[in-house]
């Protein structure tokens, strides 16, 4: 039993090492700024998707407000930098904390509401946040937006300076944080906390009969999931250099949820692939104009209909088939 667990653990670390290698190579393969920009968007969306999956896929709390937490992270860190002159990294921490705190506030509703009702409440939260960003003009400059946001400051190493105005370096930074978030969430879901959250998702009454305080753990899940989204927001502001409320409109919440669903809810690796696919796919479809929205919608519908476990399920099926085929081959080889 424990051997199987440590074997799976080793396989996981190899996977993470492989991901780190892919991250290292990607900007070398994609050298034009168009694709490097897309790479950074991918990394941001990966953070948003795995953060949402922690809340929706593991704890089972249908949160449609991820766009709001993304926006709160972006605006809080940017305003602290632009208005109070805070350096980037302290502002980053504040943005993450602000997102997590607002996530905890929303989770207090999750204690009373579940399923569709929580979905509506969280959607309402996203709408309110959007409206505040849009209308609190003295603070956010509303639809005019905030311009000239600097990228994260360069990191000086002895004899070498990493400058984040360079898209490749910025990608390394954001992807590094995405990987860090992934490892953190992965460690959590593979600890007893993963079992606790799943128990709450499956049956709250039953979970309570095992001593699980569902209220406390929902707050925890929201805090962690929205903190990751807040971190993505901080990088977004420094990356794009401009903040407008429209970037955090509620449709963004649905986009992120689509990444989680297409990738495979309740697995962490699935939403990573979902985020990459749904970021890159629309770029390839740009040639067919607005038809791409139909193709996008169709793809989403097909996934939900025929592969409800998403990409993660498809990968699992493929792996099982491969293993069966190889075992049949070895069996056939024996006389």
């Amino acid at each position: 039993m424990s051997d199987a667990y440590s074997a799976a653990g080793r396989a996981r670390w190899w996977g993470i090492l492989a991901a780190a290698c892919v991250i290292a190579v990607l900007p070398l393969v994609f050298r034009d700024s168009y694709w490097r920009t897309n790479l950074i968007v991918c990394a941001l969306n990966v953070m948003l998707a795995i953060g949402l999956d922690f809340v929706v896929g593991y704890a089972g709390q249908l949160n449609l407000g991820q766009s709001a937490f993304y926006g709160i992270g972006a605006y809080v860190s940017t305003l602290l930098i632009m208005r109070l002159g805070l350096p980037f990294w302290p502002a980053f921490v504040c943005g993450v904390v602000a997102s997590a705190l607002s996530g905890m506030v929303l989770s207090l509703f999750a204690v009373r509401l579940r399923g569709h009702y929580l979905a509506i409440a969280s959607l309402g939260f996203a709408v309110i946040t959007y409206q505040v960003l849009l209308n609190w003009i003295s603070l956010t400059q509303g639809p005019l937006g905030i311009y000239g946001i600097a990228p994260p400051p360069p990191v000086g190493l002895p004899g070498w300076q990493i400058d984040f105005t360079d898209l490749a370096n910025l990608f390394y930074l954001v992807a590094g944080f995405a990987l860090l978030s992934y490892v953190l969430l992965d460690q959590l879901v593979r600890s007893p906390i993963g079992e606790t959250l799943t128990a709450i998702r499956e049956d709250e009454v039953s979970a309570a009969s095992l001593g699980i305080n569902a209220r406390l753990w929902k707050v925890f899940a929201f805090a962690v999931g929205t903190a990751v989204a807040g971190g993505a927001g901080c990088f977004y502001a420094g990356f794009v250099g401009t903040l407008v409320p429209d970037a955090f409109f509620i449709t963004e919440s649905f986009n992120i949820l689509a990444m989680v669903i297409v990738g495979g809810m309740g697995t962490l690796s699935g939403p990573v692939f979902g985020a990459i696919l749904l970021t890159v796919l629309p770029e390839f479809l740009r040639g067919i104009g607005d038809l791409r929205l139909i193709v996008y919608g169709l793809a989403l519908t097909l996934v939900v209909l025929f592969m409800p476990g998403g990409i993660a399920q498809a990968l699992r099926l493929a792996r099982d088939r491969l293993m069966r085929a190889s075992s049949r081959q070895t069996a056939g080889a024996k006389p």
Partner: protein
Amino acid sequence: MSDAAAIFRAVGLSKNFGGVRAVKDVSLAVAPATVFAIIGPNGAGKSTLLNLISGVHPPDAGTVMFNSLDVTALPPHARVRHGLARTFQKIRLFKQLSVIDNVVAGFHARHRIPAWQYVWHGTAFRADRARCRAEAAELLAFVGLSGRGQALAGALSYGEQRMLEIARALATAPRLLLIDEPAAGLNAAEVEALLERIRVLRQRGMAVVVVEHNMDLVMNVADRVLVMDYGEPLFEGTPAEVQVHPGVIAAYLGAES
């Protein structure tokens, strides 16, 4: 039985749903290493009483004492930490989880892992995991589910699911186990196996409260029996006393007393 010896005591429990008196002024005391059965016809308020004991419903009146500690105001999850576990009449397993993971979820309140090791799995984490897996495997063996650990809980037969629910409840290391309608949907062999397990638990010093409407089953295992009718306690005594009590016979057979 003297009150001091009781691990669990309920005094004057009442619960109304709307205008319906589901439970009215019920008191009971359960000693360690005994099987206490609550029986009565359908609708007698047995399951409501169990929900009052486990904390699913707050009582309208009365107190619930556990280990001479007043737990009346505690929510269900907090009562578990005092050693109170339960199963459900309508089985409530985590159907999407494997059999062993269902049991491991029951260790929730008993993990010994420093907080930082949840993020970075160290030695204490691995030791805790090995301990929980080993104990879970023991519990599965205890309820006769050895070798089924990797199956999905939803894929088990009805009888196996009942036993799994008991194993999961035992994972919380209870001193009082509440079992709601254990025999419902089980065949005779499964019922016999279940009774045998309950006897073993009693031998180990655990107090077991069984809610059941099948009187024959209860007579085989219970030390004390509380008969309920229309939400009120009708009679409490040993199985032998219950069997000859005219009021109980009347309640079950509908005869004139």
